[in-house]
């Protein structure tokens, strides 16, 4: 599903050049659950951003779903992104002014799903993450775990092929963290590919494969399953 080869990304300011990705090559197969680990500054987040089509690489190849996307422009990337990729962030990133229902509904609005369909699909997915009873609450009225479940619901409501998770349990206590991880596993079992950046060995163990990174390169890969 994802095949990146010799990917490079360099951040430049006037005086400093930071190599974030250094000829990185990774492959992720459809249906896989991959965890990416590594110390701060090793390039994990950059990688995730490029995988999420939020950022473009300086060099190298990125084949997504058999299409070369490394040179896609903003518009094409946005289009591909909204139909294929869901995001889960460490800090949930829910919109405070929208209710749980509306937050989850938003990606459907942007992909142009009809109102009646939207309602059905949002309810379905809220049911799945067991937050239906809070559908009319605002994010601030929920616990962290609940907020992250809403964020997961939002990520999957469009039935994306790929979910990118950036330390999804980073802001949660262990109980809530486990809940979210189980939810991710469940999604993976239903066929969604997941790539997750994490610091937590505990969380990483939910995945099939751990890629360890250092200084913009992969160091080791552990296959867990």
């Amino acid at each position, binding site marked *: 599903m994802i095949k990146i080869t010799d990917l490079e990304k360099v951040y430049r300011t006037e005086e400093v050049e930071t190599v974030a990705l250094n000829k990185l090559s990774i492959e992720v197969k459809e249906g896989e659950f991959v965890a990416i680990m590594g110390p701060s500054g090793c390039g994990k987040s950059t990688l995730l951003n490029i995988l999420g089509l939020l950022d473009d690489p300086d060099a190298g190849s990125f084949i997504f779903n058999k299409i070369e996307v490394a040179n896609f422009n903003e518009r094409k990337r946005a289009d591909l*992104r909204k139909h294929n990729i869901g*995001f889960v962030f460490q800090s949930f990133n829910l919109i405070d*002014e929208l209710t749980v229902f509306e937050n989850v509904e938003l990606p459907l609005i942007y992909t142009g799903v009809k109102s009646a369909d939207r309602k059905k699909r949002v309810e379905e997915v809220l049911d799945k993450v067991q937050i239906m009873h809070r559908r009319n609450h605002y994010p601030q009225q929920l616990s962290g775990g609940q907020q992250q479940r809403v964020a997961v619901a939002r990520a999957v409501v469009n039935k994306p092929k790929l979910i990118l998770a950036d330390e999804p349990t980073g802001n949660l206590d262990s109980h809530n963290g486990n809940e979210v991880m189980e939810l991710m596993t469940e999604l993976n079992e239903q066929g969604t590919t997941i790539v997750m950046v994490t610091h937590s060995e505990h969380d990483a163990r939910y995945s099939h494969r751990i890629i360890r990174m250092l200084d913009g390169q992969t160091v080791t890969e552990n296959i867990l399953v």
Partner: protein
Amino acid sequence: MFKTNLRFTWRNLLKNKTYSAINIIGLAVSLAACILLLLWVQDELSFDRFHSNSNNIYRLAASFKQEGKDNVWSGTPAPVATFARKELPEVANTCRVTDNWSISLLEYKGKKYFNNRCGLADATFFTMFNFPLVKGNARQPFTDDRSVILSETTAKKFFGEEDPIGKILNADDKNAYHVTGVMKDMPFNSSIRYDIIFDFTVLKRDYTGNDYWKSLDEDWGNYNYSTFLLLAPGADSKKVGQKLANIHRRNQDGEFTKNLTYIPLPLSKVHLYTPEGKDDGITIVKVFIIVAAIILLIACINYVNLVTARAIKRAKEISLRKIIGANKGGLFWQFLHEALMIFLIAMLVATALIYLVMPLYNEIAGKRIVFNPLQGNVLLVYGITLLATMLLAGIYPALSLSSFKPLEAMKGKLSGLGSKVAFRKVLVVVQFSFSIMLIVGTIIIGNQLKYIRQKNLGYNKENLLYFGMRNITEHYDAAKAELLKQPGVVAVTASGADIMNAWSSTGDADWDGKTAAQQTFVINQISAERNFLDVMNLQIVQGKGFSGTPADSTNYLLNETAIKVMSIKDPVGKRFTFHDKKGVIAGVVKDFHFQNLHRQIEPAIIYFSPWRWRMYVKTTAKDASKAVAAVEKIWKQYNPDYPLEYQFLDDAFDTNYRSDIRVGKLFNCFAIITILISCLGLFGLVTYTAETRIKEIGVRKVLGASVPGIVSMLSKDFLKLVGISIVIAFPVAWWALSKMLESYPYRTAISWWVFALAGFITLAIALVTISFQAIKAALANPVKSLRSE
């Protein structure tokens, strides 16, 4: 999508109450101010445009070139119209209109009414103009020259529900007039406004055939009548004027008419331009349009500034929307919807505000604007302001905010407008430059009004009351003697002119050495009793003045300007012929202002004559009420049928400048609003600056920064901007105001302290605005701000 956006905006507004309040109140107040100004402008511009022929109707002005100076009268002699219709094919129709001074009281079955606005007009009046008749025949409104047409209100006043047609009204000119028609009340935005229209041809009766002018149709010397021409489409109005002047010369040859031209002024310009078509009231209209535009611009700048400043806080939301699939177009619409919603709310609040202040506004502006938001013209004004605001304030932020790069924005780095602090600074400078200009303008306009009101007029206007004498004229000496016996009455005099508004002038003056160029010399004539100069405190600079002997009827007193224009050396004792009466110059009167101060002092003559109808009674401040009582008593004795209408001279003076004072007041109000709105914007901006720098402030405090240090750090940048605005605004304001003051022949000087004061006021207001937020930010607990990060 639209619904979702609106819902989102609404919640956003509720959540950020300060931000919303600043934005909405600022916009609402400025929209209200802008709409009020534009309503005023619209009302001014609507004058006389309701006539379907208004594009082809012209009013003639008579112009005499006199040594490079134009002397323009808005009236013409009566025969001009007759000849125009007879001889010029391009003149489709004509109508003469004038005030009917000879009637001030009308009576029906014991009901007496004074001060109806009585006019005289040709029978073409109701077909050429759009003054519709409710009853009667517009083509033949008058059956004979004793016919009258009443306005609906006037008819109701006299006859109630009875049919007015055929009813007889008795007038104080001892004639009976019968009603032949009823017209709709003339609208307020009409330059021609009467309650009663008499037949113009009744004036023919004033000519006996034995005087110098044989008949109305041959009287080429009386410029008392407004002549309106309806020209055929495409006719060259300038040529028509020249042809009419030629016709006039053919009928009245001589030096006086040699330089005569007739200037047709389009009817639509009558209200706002001088008779010859120069800018008059239109200047104020233009100024007010500019002020309205400035207010709207400042409000829009506020909006743009606040929205883009706040974008920093909204970066997360915007980028999130992008990540989960929003494209640029979608975000653009979202911001536009937000702007639209805020503007519509502001519009509603503005409408409520306008409703509230409309009565007050009408009073200050001297208007009768009926505010109905659903009326076509009001909707037009609404539409224009809304469109302008959307263009200025809606599209720009929408474009710039929707082009965020999501990732950078997520991290708090902004590309696009949100990051361009310099751009916001420019906007603040623009805003404050305008505000400072308006402050300077307010002070100078105030100064000018004060200057006019405090100017020495050349006579004493204190403790003098005056009134038209009516029947007292014939018993003047007895009445005067009686009055002087009364307590409170210090002196009594009389004149044929209103000393503040003497408009009667003549060219009928001759002296030794009068040159050909001086043949068009025109002099203002003020007939007076002998003691007029004493009572009024007019100063004689040469000669002795009236002697108290019968010779006084040929003793002429001229003002300094007259002597200068006539270029007579050692004038006292020189021969002077006035209205064919040979006499001498018995004195030179120091120049005094016998017309309002918008006009330069012109030549004037004071001559002794029984032709007087205005009595001046001097009293003291203490006994003014006694003097009024005495005048009332005498009045009843001679004029039992009429109410006494007296005025104190200083009140009359204020009345003269009422429109100046009104404009001044309006300008003040709108300048204050502009400054307040600018400050509101500054306040919002400082609030957000403080918020975005909250972490920096926290760190600085932890490291030992003092509260005053932080306040000055936050304030300095903004005060610098205000400083730059001052530098920009001063020269512009100086230039614009010198230009504006040029229209006043007597004007105040623009002195440096005005600018100093304006600068000080602006800095002070800005400082108060800024420091309020800056101090709040500086006092905040750093632990809290650091933890929240």
